[in-house]
């Protein structure tokens, strides 16, 4: 259970960072 939670956290962390960069790209397009 604890390991499954860790998996979710690390997968989410990676995907959130990619999402932030996608948002960053959109922001730069508008700027």
């Amino acid at each position, binding site marked *: 259970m604890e390991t499954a939670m860790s998996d979710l956290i*690390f997968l989410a962390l*990676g995907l959130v960072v990619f999402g932030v*960069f996608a948002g960053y790209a959109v922001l730069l397009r508008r700027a």
Partner: protein
Amino acid sequence: MNWQGWAELAFTLALTVLCAVPLGLYLGRVWMGEKTWLDPVLRPVEGGLYRVFGVDPAKGQNWLTYALALLAFSAASFVTLYLILRFQNLLPFNPQGFDGLSPHLAFNTAVSFVTNTNWQSYVPEQTVSTFTQMAGLTSHNFLSAAAGIAVAAALARAFASHRGEDLGNFWVDLTRISLYVLLPISVVMAIGFVALGVPQTLAAHADATTLEGARQTIALYPAASQEAIKQLGTNGGGIFNANSAHPFENPNAWTNLIQIVAMNALSLACVFAFGRAAGAVKEARALAAVMVILLGAASASVYATETANPAPAQAAAGAQTDVNMEGKEVRFGAPSTAAWVAATTGASDGGVNAMHDSLMPLGGGVAMFMIMLGEIIPGGVGSGLYGMAVMALLAVFVAGLMVGRTPEYLGKKVEAREIKLAMLAVLILPAAILGFTAVAAVTPVALAGLLNHGPHGLSEMLYAYTSAAGNNGSAFAGLTANTPWWNTTLGICMLLGRFGYLVPVLAIAGAIAAKPRLTATAGSLPTHGSLFIGLLIGIVLILGGLQFFPALALGPIVEHFQVLAAVR
């Protein structure tokens, strides 16, 4: 120090340039979609892949679409690799019977291979299965390298464009670069490595009896195929923990020479390809000249520090020799080590044939400094070219301010937007490296991973974050990095260094593509002569390097003086 050593450094560098020129011309043809001699075999495969994945090769992308495609591809790669690493115990080709990696190690490793860093917080022969190595790690050596080269191709198209927005198609670039460049060269190199003694087998291990009669289990992998793309794609991740200091990865002087040349050749070739694709052959030669001059200077510096300085252990023992062999592979000695250290840190490769922690303090400092310059000498495949192009934009801007000329580069006016974006890209490295190092320096869980304290301990931390943010992947050694703190923060650092740089670069490409292409006038600053080469070297050293000087002063430079004081 002797003339043979200097000759070896010069020969290695000359051979790299000699290989890069024709490779660059070929790469340029691949970028432009021109006919190549591999077309009869690979065109049908290429077309088949487009049909399977639903890619329309004629459809161009603007910079934002290109960037989002790259990010989506990298995110999907991250998830896939994470799952392979976590569940390798359930997957085939696991003759060693390895369990899945821990979540934080899987995160670090997945990020590492997706960002072309290949930092390894683990001992490969005790951790990853043959399947993970081949399907997970080696495949990403191809794909992450191809993604970097794709961005360089997009930038070249931007400079060639006249009031356009089409930077090409990311999926087409990824496919063509993998298929026409990385795969065929890797196959040839792998066969060559097998001929030179590098193992290529699915067997888990060989059993041997030592001279004392003890039984020894020697780990085996398909090493030759990994070795080829490891160097060609500036990946650097070892299939064995000792990396290219291991006799199976790098058995002799020939494999050593081939690997040094391979880790720089394709990055330098990207510059020549850029010149061809952007219609700026002379200007590309100037960029290549800057890379070669700085790479030569770095090799010479490491060779000098490893042979001219007093070796502390030997001085303490009263030995009469200047050469410090501590940590170096005896088969290669100081010159081959120096050539390798400069090549692997300049090229964002990260493979090692000696442990950088064991270099003299200034030698280790040079290695760190090369990565801090932004991995542009000649840098990672593709990323070195676009990093140097950013520096060139800043150089023409600074020159324009100094002499009152209109800043323009390759027929494109350089205006406020490009400079702001260039600074966003350039500042990501110091922010990530110095920021994380500062936090780690006052965090007990981070400090617990250090083997040394004082200046050398700082160097170990600083090197780790520098290597991660620069997407280099080499380890200084002396740091126990397989902990939640180090795996997580280094992983974030790798993502920042890769995509925090790459996104503004693609935005610059979009801005450049939209501008009209102007003809050079008497008011244009020539960007191909020795004056510009000197200016660009200055910008690279001052803008890229000076911001790290205080941190270097507290690490390797202080340690250098401590060594001098200790042996006197």
